[in-house]
C-alpha cells in the first residue's frame, strides 16, 4: 500500500510539472505581447520595453519557467536553504497578488460546487436506484427522459431561464450575485442565510447536468449488480430485499460512483464557468476568463496550478478511498 502511494505521488509530481510547463509554453506562444497589453494603447515601444522588463516577459521562456517554479516551491536557495511560502506571482494587469485573487475566488467556486454536489447526489441516488429497481416502468421512462433533457440543456440557457423566471418574474430568489458567508462587503448582503439564499438557483443550475449523468450511471451500475451471482446467493440464504439492497447491491454498485465523484469534483473546482458567468459569481472560472482576455499569464497559470493540484489531490484521495473500500485492491 505504501509503495502504491509513493508511486502515485511521484506520478502526481510528474503530471504537475508537465501540465504547468505546457500551460506556460502555450502562453508564450500566443502572438500577443502581454507587456503591450498591460501598458495600454497610449504606450510607445520604449515604454513597452520597460514594462516588459519590469514584468519579466523579455527573458527567455525557460528562465521565466524556472522563476515560476522557484516561486511556487516551498523552499528557497537564495541566501542559504530555507523554507518560504509558495506564491503565485502578481497579475500583469493590476499587480494584484495571484494568491489573493485565488483566495477570494476559490471559496465562491467551492461553495457553488460543494453545494451543487450535495444536491446532485440527493437527486441522483434515489432516482437512479428506483429506476434500476423498476426498469421500463413509468418512473424509469420519465427519469430517462429527464436525464436526456438534463444533459442536453446548456447550463447558460438553463441559468438564464431560471434566473429570469424564478428570480425576476416570480421574485422567489435573487437574480444573481454572491453573498459572502462570513464577511459581507460594504452594502452587500451577507451571513449564512443570505449565502444559501443567493446560491439556491446556481446550485440547481450547476447540479442538473451532473445529476443527469449520475442518474444514468447509478441506474446502470445497480442494474448490473442486481444480476450478479452473489446477489442470488444472498436471496437464496433468505435475506429480505432491503438487506440485499443495502448490504450486497449498493456497496458494490456505488464503488465506481466514488471514483467518478472525485474526478468530477476535482475538475469542477477549477471553475464552473457557465454557471458563474450567468449568476455573476466571481469564482475561479470567472477569474480565468477575465485573465485570459487580458493575457494575464500569472493569474491564468496560478489558477491552473490550483486546479491541477486540486484534481491530483482528489484523484489520489479517490484512489485511496477505493483501495480502502474494495478488499480486492487492498489485499493484492
Amino acid at each position, binding site marked *: 500500500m505504501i*509503495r502504491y502511494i*509513493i*508511486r502515485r505521488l*511521484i506520478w502526481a509530481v510528474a503530471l504537475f510539472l508537465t501540465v504547468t510547463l505546457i500551460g506556460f509554453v502555450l502562453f508564450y506562444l500566443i502572438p500577443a505581447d502581454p507587456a503591450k497589453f498591460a501598458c495600454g494603447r497610449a504606450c510607445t515601444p520604449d515604454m513597452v520595453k520597460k514594462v516588459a522588463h519590469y514584468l519579466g516577459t523579455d527573458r527567455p521562456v525557460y528562465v521565466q519557467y524556472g522563476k515560476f517554479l522557484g516561486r511556487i516551491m516551498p523552499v528557497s536557495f537564495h541566501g542559504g536553504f530555507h523554507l518560504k511560502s509558495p506564491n503565485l506571482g502578481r497579475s500583469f494587469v493590476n499587480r494584484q497578488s495571484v494568491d489573493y485573487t485565488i483566495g477570494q475566488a476559490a471559496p465562491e467556486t467551492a461553495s457553488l460546487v460543494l453545494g451543487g454536489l450535495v444536491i446532485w447526489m440527493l437527486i441522483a441516488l434515489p432516482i437512479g436506484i428506483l429506476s434500476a429497481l423498476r426498469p421500463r416502468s413509468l418512473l424509469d421512462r420519465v427519469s430517462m427522459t429527464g436525464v436526456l433533457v438534463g444533459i442536453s440543456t446548456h447550463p447558460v440557457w438553463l441559468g438564464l431561464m431560471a434566473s429570469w423566471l424564478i428570480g425576476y418574474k416570480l421574485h422567489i430568489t435573487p437574480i444573481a450575485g454572491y453573498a459572502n458567508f462570513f464577511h459581507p462587503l460594504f452594502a452587500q448582503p451577507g451571513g449564512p442565510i443570505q449565502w444559501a439564499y443567493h446560491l439556491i438557483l446556481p446550485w440547481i443550475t450547476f447540479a442538473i447536468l451532473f445529476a443527469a449523468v449520475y442518474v444514468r450511471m447509478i441506474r446502470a451500475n445497480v442494474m448490473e449488480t442486481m444480476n450478479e451471482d452473489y446477489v442470488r446467493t444472498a436471496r437464496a440464504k433468505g435475506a429480505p430485499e432491503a438487506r440485499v439492497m443495502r448490504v450486497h447491491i449498493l456497496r458494490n454498485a456505488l464503488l465506481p460512483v466514488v471514483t467518478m465523484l472525485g474526478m468530477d469534483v476535482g475538475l469542477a473546482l477549477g471553475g464552473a464557468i457557465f454557471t458563474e458567468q450567468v449568476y455573476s459569481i466571481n469564482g475561479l472560472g470567472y477569474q480565468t476568463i477575465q485573465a485570459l482576455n487580458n493575457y494575464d499569464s500569472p493569474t491564468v497559470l496560478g489558477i491552473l496550478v490550483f486546479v491541477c493540484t486540486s484534481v491530483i489531490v482528489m484523484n489520489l484521495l479517490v484512489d485511496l478511498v477505493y483501495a480502502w473500500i474494495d478488499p480486492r485492491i487492498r489485499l493484492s
Partner: protein
Amino acid sequence: MTTAQTEPAAGLDLRGDELLVVEDLKKHFPVTRGIIFQKQVAAVQAVDGVSFALREGETLGVVGESGCGKSTMARCILKLLEPTSGRILYRGRDLTHLSRAEMRPYRREMMMIFQDPYASLNARKRVGFIVAEALEVHKMGTPAEVKRRVQELLEVVGLNPEHYNRFPHEFSGGQRQRIGIARALAVNPKLIVCDEPVSALDVSVQAQILNLLKDLQRDFNLTYVFIAHDLNVVRYISDRVLVMYLGQIVESAARTDLYEDPKHPYTGALLSAVPVPDPDVEARRKRIVLEGDVPSPINPPSACRFHTRCPRFVEGHCDVEPPELVPRAGTPPDHAVRCHYPLERWPLTEQEMRRATPAGPAAA
C-alpha cells in the same frame, strides 16, 4: 542421457519425418514489482520444459487441470506467444526465432480452434468474412474463388452454405464451433491445434463436433494437437496422450496404454476422479482423492512438482531429486513417466498407492 540438453529425448524416438517436434519448451511470465522501475522478482513458470514429437496424421491429446500450462503451450507452438526458451521444429525447420514476416508462410499450415464459440468469432463480421479472412491474408484466389471455397467449407462442416451472409449470433454454440473449424480449414493446414474445442458445448452437440473432427482428419490427413481437461474426450480422439502438471509433462504414452496402465500417480488420480456413467462401475470403483489444491506456478514445489499431493511421496527423495521423463523397464519404449516410484499396476486403491516400491530409482 546427453548433458547438453536438459531433457533427454525420452519418448522422442525421432525418425526424422516428424511433422512437429518441440524440444524443451519453456514459457515464463515475469512478475514485476517496483515503484518506478519495474524489476522482475519472480516468474510464473507456465510451461517448464516440454518436449514431444508428432507425426503427420496423428492426434496428440494433452490433458491436465487448470494451471498446468497446456493452453500456454498450445499458443507457444503456434508462436502466438514467444517461447522463453526451447525449440519448435516444424517439418525440420526451426521456427523459434523467426520474425513475424518469416512466420507468415508457416501460419498457413498451422491453425487453431478455440474454446469459446461465443468469443472467438467477431460478432460484427459475417460468417463468410470470418471463414474467408485467412484465404485473403494469404492471397489464395480471386474473390469469386474465395467465395466458392467458403461455401464448400461450410458444407464440409455441416452448415448450410446459404448462411454465408449471417452473423455469428444467429447460430447456436455448436454451429459456431463449426464455423471456427471451417475457418481453420480454409487454407488447407497440416496441423490444427484444438484448445478445448468442445468444453463449452452440450453433450449431444459435443459428439457431433468430435465426430466431425475425426472425419475431417481422415479426409484431409490432418494432424491434431487436442487440448482438453475432459479425459473421456481425450481418450476418444487421441492416438497419443500427454499428461501435464504445473508446466511439465508427467506422463506420455499411447492412448490405450495411458488409460489402462497409467504409471504416474497423478494420472491415476485423474483417472479415478472422472465419474463414469455406470452406477455399478461407480460403486465398485477404487477412488483416489487428492488432498489440497494445485500449487501456484510462481513458486512450484521443489524437485518433483507433484510431491506435495502425492500418495507415494517419499521424503528425502521426491522433494530433493527431480525425476526425469523416461520410459520404464517393462513398458513400451514410447511410454515415458516422470516419477521415482511409478505405479506397478492399475487399478490401485489409495491405500495400495501409498505403498511405494522399495527405496531407489524405480523399476516396475
